[in-house]
């Protein structure tokens, strides 16, 4: 089983296209395998005749496993012997004092009780199989010191100063493979001393921390246009008048009540789902954002939502929102349209999978197929950001379309 992709550890055999005795050319596709990513073909390394096929369809085989043998000419076989990588022990040996001697001793078998009896290992004729046999051992990286490597010293210093890796983004590492050495870090910190600095507010650092944690996930955003005219008409009939964002919040709550799986969080291979549809509302407070949560938004009438919302916004602006008021939401709404923005890619809170953003409503000409003419409509963009581990574009799109439908009949919200 060859390594067909960087992250591939094993693959399932989908089809075997040859039988023992078949003549094969070089690079002929003989086996189809499926990984978690794609279906791919395994090709022959050289021309010859299929000797045996040891693999079975639907079987799962680790990278390096023997799937079968190709009978090849001696010339071809010799070519593969030459290409086979050297055993790694010799390389390791040179770097450690005495290791060379130890490994030499082990190879000679002089007095070692732990010597491997090579005759007991599966013997594979060179060049006659699909891949050079190195099965049975874990691949060992040559060195773990990539650009992302943080030495114990750097980590300890970061912990001391409460720095995160995001704080180090500006440093170009001078170490092995571009890693950040302690000297790089210290000179970076030294350079900051020369600039003006003040302590960030607690709310700012809180937002920064939440966004950084959230950003560790694969986030995606999809968007759709929605006509706000029905909503704008409906709100004139209500007292108090709910803002468009509340209609959106209510629509999101009802849509999620239908498909609660869309808001589930994926943790350790388990989809975690909340019992109640609690929706957060992003409110700009001084120097940051607060997201107080409206409980059971699917079971709360728009009128009640409106008064609760007004209350929470007031509390948020006066910085009176408690941690209980901001915890436990399963999704949030951000009305960035109030800043005149058309669209954005909002970042969901770290403990939520979804964030629905509402852009500014604008009069736009919309083509009517029926009347064969343009007519003016108040259009706004709805953008839904989601954790792509929990939800796919299709699921997010369906949720968004459901919300658009609900907003088309605001009287029912």
């Amino acid at each position: 089983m060859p390594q067909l992709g960087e992250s591939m550890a094993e693959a399932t055999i989908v089809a075997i296209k040859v039988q023992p005795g078949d003549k094969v050319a070089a690079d002929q596709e003989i086996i189809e395998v499926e990984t978690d990513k794609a279906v791919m073909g395994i090709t022959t390394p050289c021309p010859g005749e299929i000797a045996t096929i040891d693999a079975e369809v639907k079987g799962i085989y680790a990278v390096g496993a023997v799937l079968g043998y190709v009978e090849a000419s001696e010339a071809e076989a010799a070519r593969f012997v030459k290409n086979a990588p050297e055993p790694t022990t010799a390389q390791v040996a040179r770097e450690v004092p005495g290791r060379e001697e130890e490994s030499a001793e082990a190879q000679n078998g002089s007095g070692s009780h732990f010597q491997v009896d090579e005759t007991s290992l599966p013997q594979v004729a060179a060049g006659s199989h699909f891949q050079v046999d190195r099965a049975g051992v874990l691949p060992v990286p040559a060195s773990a010191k990539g650009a992302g490597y943080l030495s114990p010293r750097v980590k300890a210093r970061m912990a001391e100063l409460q720095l995160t890796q995001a704080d180090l983004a500006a440093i170009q590492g001078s170490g092995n493979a571009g890693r950040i050495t302690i000297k790089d870090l210290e000179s970076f910190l030294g350079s900051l001393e020369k600039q003006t600095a003040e302590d960030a507010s607690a709310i700012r650092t809180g937002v920064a921390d939440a966004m950084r944690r959230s950003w560790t996930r694969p986030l995606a955003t999809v968007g759709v246009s929605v006509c706000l005219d029905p909503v704008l008409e409906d709100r004139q009939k209500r007292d108090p008048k709910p803002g468009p964002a509340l209609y959106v919040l209510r629509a999101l709550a009802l849509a999620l009540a239908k498909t609660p799986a869309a808001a589930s969080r994926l943790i350790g291979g388990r989809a975690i789902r909340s019992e109640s549809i609690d929706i957060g509302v992003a409110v700009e407070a001084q120097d940051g954002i607060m997201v107080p949560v409206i409980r059971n938004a699917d079971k709360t009438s728009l009128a009640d939502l409106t008064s609760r919302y007004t209350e929470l916004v007031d509390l948020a602006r006066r910085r009176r929102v408690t941690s209980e008021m901001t915890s436990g939401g399963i999704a949030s709404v951000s009305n960035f349209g109030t800043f005149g923005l058309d669209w954005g890619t909002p970042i969901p809170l770290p403990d939520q999978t979804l964030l629905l953003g509402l852009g500014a409503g604008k009069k736009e000409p919309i083509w009517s197929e029926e009347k064969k003419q343009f007519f003016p409509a108040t259009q706004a963009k709805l953008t839904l950001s989601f954790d792509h581990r929990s939800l796919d574009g299709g699921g997010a799109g369906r949720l968004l379309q459901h919300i658009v439908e609900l907003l088309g009949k605001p009287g029912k919200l």
Partner: protein
Amino acid sequence: MSVTYLEAIREAQAHLLREDKRVFIYGQDISGKFGGAFKATKGLAAEFPNRVLNTPISEDAMVGTAIGAAMEGMRPIVEMQFADFSSVALNQILNNAGTQYWRTNIPCPITVRLPSGGTKGSGPFHSQSMEAIYSHYPGLVVVAPATVEDAYTMLIDAVAIDDPVIYCEHKYLYYHLKADALPKDRLPIGKARVVRPGRDLSIVTYSAMVHEALAVAREFSAGGVEIEVVDLRSVKPLDTDTVLASVARTGRLLCVGESFPWGGATAEIIARVATEGFHLLDAAPARINAKDTPIPYHPNLWSEHRPNAKSIAAKARQILAE
């Protein structure tokens, strides 16, 4: 006036014999005109009659006799002809001397001098460094002076210590190292010394390897890289604080020892730094020792067998590139 490392050892013994009636020296061919294989006791027998004594060729008996004398209140110095032969006396040193105080509450203030380390062409039986073995056992103090000054003061201090002391004197330094005069000040046993300050890499070593490390540090300094060299001076007790402080300054550690690689002082230093100072390390700690084979006779092989300025520099470059 100048004084060599070997003369400092002789002067220290003369001083001890002069100042302390309890001191005597016990060894093979050290009395009479011969003055020992390396002349470390030359002239002392004449100056201090009946206190510089020849022994049979039995290291076992030599140390056993010294232990008995120490129990009776004496402060014997035992001279081994070569450190290598002290293995014949392992039972006396490890089992008897090392455990005595803990078994009996009677101290065992003996000092065993081990002419240690390699010189060209001396081969497997006359070149070994034994500090790792003795450091492994409780009850013993193990020192390895790297300078003329330390050779003098540490031998005097060794005799003053109530525990058995293994004094590893390096044969290569006997004639190669000179100082202007005997020292007036002393650093106590158990304290390491930063012999060259630096900020980029700490080389922690002892005995003759201090001078190889210093040569590397001078070479690197020309290129703007400052290597800090720490001379442990005593292998046991090991001055972990000074080592950690050095690693705190540089973030990188290379340990160099002339003894064999399996276990030993360099491994112990790395184990301690990894345990107590993991957060100080900006690169993986490394060590260089002799090769894991018996010591070869051939001068060229010998030069490659033990660490030298060239191999230390190569390893230093590797660590600095991390």
